[in-house]
């Protein structure tokens, strides 16, 4: 019931949005729709939180053994909530931007929300794949049509990159499907698929590359900074706040429990890649002058950590990933909002051209500093909870012998992230104003509202994360039990 609504509401309103030609009207319509989605999602979390409400099943491609099965467990709840929260926030934050052909813009936004919801809700591999691509296509159109100068080439790269990945995944899905006992795409059947070790091995990589490109994990990341840089900020928020979570989600739901043996065998390799990626991205982030690129690289580093934590198979790490997926989404959206605000007024994102904004816009500065601190995982912000659990998990991995090494190397990024984040704050907000930044005005009410909400979320989760942890505990247990049963060693 709830899942179906979560998918159908944005889908229908998105299609309808194509026909609302007035900019104001379509904006309001989109906001209205996303708020409804949010309400539905919250209802699912609170009042209607019963198994019967959270799952739905219908006939689809019967002959192929694929059904329209959607449902939400703890992880699904968290990510749907993130999607549901993110979109209204994004819309409000970018309320003052105006777009050519606004109806198309908002329609595509809503469609991508549909895709994202679908991905997080699907319990059927083929359905999952459908939504996976459905989320991608609107994003492609959004970036290519409303992006920066080099948008066409850059988004094209992004598109082809992810498309190759997802095709590889498709092969993996098909292979698994053919090896299920009942020829079905259902997740449960995938668990039962009989595969030899070798088969598991290469299917693992088929899946992993798809997810790795999405996350992105080094060395599959080069699309990301360019795309983030060139996309309109609202889309960047969707991409980085929600869409990259698809990769992690995919790994957790479709890769790790389905191919436990391969996960176990390749875990260290993946973790190593992640660690390299984390340090690599952090070092590069230190060199960036463009705010968007900086945040993009920082995001790569953070995603690397989460990816690593999944593959070391530990309850803390897994739990950390769950909560951090949400946190990272919230935090990075906050960062983008700030960038958007600055760019809209200053027409530049170059840190070297900015400076002294704290004098001109103290409100913005304070909110940014809190968000930025959350980005470096300072205690009592939400990201601390996540990163603490992640690192604990990695350090104390029961599977990987290299846990402490990984944790220590990954820990270096804690320092590096402090370096580049503080650098950014310093260059943008501190120092004296120049002729450009002297004209900056402080933020408006709607922006203050959005950032305020984000900050409250950041702090509340940072201080009292228990509800979240309890929500995802069940999922974590299930996944870990799947991961561990098959290789008792």
């Amino acid at each position, binding site marked *: 019931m709830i899942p179906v609504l979560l998918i159908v509401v944005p889908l229908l309103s998105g299609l309808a949005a194509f026909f609302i030609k007035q900019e104001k009207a379509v904006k309001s319509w989109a906001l209205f729709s996303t708020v409804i989605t949010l309400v539905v999602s919250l209802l699912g979390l609170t009042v209607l939180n019963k198994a019967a409400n959270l799952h739905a099943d219908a006939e689809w491609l*019967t*002959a192929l053994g694929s059904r329209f099965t959607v449902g939400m467990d703890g992880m699904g709840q968290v990510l749907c909530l993130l999607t549901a929260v993110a979109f209204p926030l994004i819309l409000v934050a970018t309320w003052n931007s105006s777009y050519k052909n606004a109806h198309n813009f908002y329609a595509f936004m809503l469609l991508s929300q549909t895709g994202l919801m679908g991905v997080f809700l699907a319990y059927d591999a083929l359905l999952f794949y459908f939504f996976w691509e459905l989320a991608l296509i609107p994003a492609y159109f959004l970036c290519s*049509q409303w992006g920066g100068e080099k948008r*066409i080439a850059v988004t094209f790269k992004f*598109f082809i990159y992810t*498309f190759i990945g997802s*095709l590889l995944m498709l*092969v993996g899905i*098909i292979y698994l499907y053919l090896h299920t006992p009942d020829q079905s795409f259902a997740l449960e059947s995938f668990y039962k698929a009989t595969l030899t070790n070798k088969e598991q091995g290469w299917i693992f990589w088929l899946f992993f590359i798809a997810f790795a490109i999405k996350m992105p994990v080094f060395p599959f990341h080069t699309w990301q900074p360019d795309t983030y840089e060139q996309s309109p900020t609202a889309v960047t928020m969707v991409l980085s706040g929600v869409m990259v979570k698809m990769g992690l989600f995919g790994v957790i739901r479709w890769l790790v429990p389905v191919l436990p043996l391969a996960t176990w065998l390749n875990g260290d390799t993946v973790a190593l890649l992640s660690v390299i990626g984390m340090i690599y991205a952090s070092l590069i982030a230190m060199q960036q002058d463009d705010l968007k690129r900086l945040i993009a690289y920082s995001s790569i580093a953070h995603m690397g950590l989460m990816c690593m934590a999944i593959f070391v198979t530990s309850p803390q790490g897994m739990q950390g990933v769950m909560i951090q997926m949400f946190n990272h989404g919230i935090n990075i959206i906050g960062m983008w909002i700030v960038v958007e605000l600055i760019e809209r007024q200053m027409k530049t994102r170059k840190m070297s051209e900015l400076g002294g904004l704290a004098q001109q816009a103290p409100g913005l500065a304070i909110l940014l500093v809190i968000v930025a601190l959350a980005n470096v995982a300072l205690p009592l912000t939400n990201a601390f909870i996540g990163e603490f659990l992640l690192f604990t998990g990695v350090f104390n991995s029961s599977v990987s012998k290299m846990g402490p090494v990984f944790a220590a190397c990954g820990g270096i990024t804690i320092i590096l992230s402090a370096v580049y984040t503080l650098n950014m704050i310093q260059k943008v907000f501190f120092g004296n104003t120049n002729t450009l930044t002297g004209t900056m005005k402080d933020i408006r009410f709607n922006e203050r509202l959005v950032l305020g909400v984000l900050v409250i979320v950041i702090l509340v989760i940072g201080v009292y994360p228990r509800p979240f942890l309890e929500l995802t505990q069940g999922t974590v247990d299930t996944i870990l039990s799947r991961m561990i049963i098959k290789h008792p060693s």
Partner: protein
Amino acid sequence: MNAIVISAIWGVVMMFSGIFSKNNAVIRGTALTGLALLIVVNVMEMGGTSLFKVNVHGMLYFDSFSLLFNTIAFGSTFLYTLLSGRDMDRVGRSTPDYFALIFFILCGVAISSSFNSLLMLFLGIEIMSIPLYILTGTDKRNLKSNEAALKYFLMGSFSTGIMLMGITLLYGAKGSFNLEAIALGTGELTPMVSAGLLLLLVAMGFKVSAAPFHFWTPDVYDGAPTVFTSFMATVIKSAGFIAFLRLFDDAFGEMHAQWQLVVAVVTAATLIIGNITAVFQQSVKRMLAYSSIAQAGFMLFALVALNELSRQGLIFYTAAYSVATIGIFAVLIKMKDYTFEGFNGLAKRQPVLAATAAIFLLSLAGIPGTAGFMAKFYMLAGAVANGHVLWLVIVGILCAAISIYYYFRVIQAMYFKEGDAQEMEVSGTFKALLVLLAAIVVVLGIFPQCLLDKLYYFF
């Protein structure tokens, strides 16, 4: 059988329609009636009602597979006529004759989808080919069209020679032209059968433009009047595939393992050459020609895999591919400039045209939610299920990714680039039809079952 007889008769009717009416609209109407009639009788036959009791002496064999395909082919032609029929008038004055030829071709299509004897295959293929040579050359003043016709003709008859040699060798080995008789015997591939098989493979590969026998395709598609290119690239090609599959499945299915490698090589070559060459094209029409080679590569997966999934898949693929290609060609015909630049900024001038074209292209590229995806899905699933050709699957995937490049170039031109695309006048009906076609593409993409179930429900 219904379809064969009716289409032949209607061909004659069309031939004479030109005498009774000079009005092209009337002629088109007659043709559409004929097509509708064809669809109806074919569906009737699917339901078990045969209008003509003819003893075919085992020459033809109608099963759900061939009948379903016939329906698809007739349906596609119907849509094609609706969308592009009007544009035939611009090619030349003999519209009734064109329609007559098209009906004869449909007769050939029906034969080659249901042959059970190499003789009928040969005749069917020839009935399809000979009118096509003509249609290619209908734009008589246009040297390109002339050239295409001559090339097509020379190479086509060359491949006919090859095919006949193949048939002969098979006959020499087995003493019969009947598919069942050929399939009889051991699973061993004797030298003569093998040589015959290879020659047939070459000839059929030529018809479906598989590499390295594809060279005629770009030139002919490019040179032929666009209206007929559209027809050629869809119905004829699909029919070629159905015949191909039928031949190899029924006659050589037993020894599949022994010729799989060769077909796999052909498939890979087709995919790679088609996709890679398409990347560099400057003309959308030519790009579509190469892309049709690439699509042929995907359809060849059915032959490589040769299992139930891929058989279903091929049917579905032909439908998905035909509908999308007819759509995109219908849009292309309306353009004044066939280069990519010619599409710049189309979205602003003609949003409906651009949007539907985008959907067709997405379908060709195999994006989920469109028919093209399900088609590719079936093909890949079939190949994976086969288990021996995973390397081919990977090649296929990489090529699919390449194909994104050139399909999306059109989308980019339409949506993201500035420019004023010159197009001809488009009527409201035309737009409505395009939307209908796009809707078909999407519905097939989300509920492929509604087509494939027909394979089972009627029998």
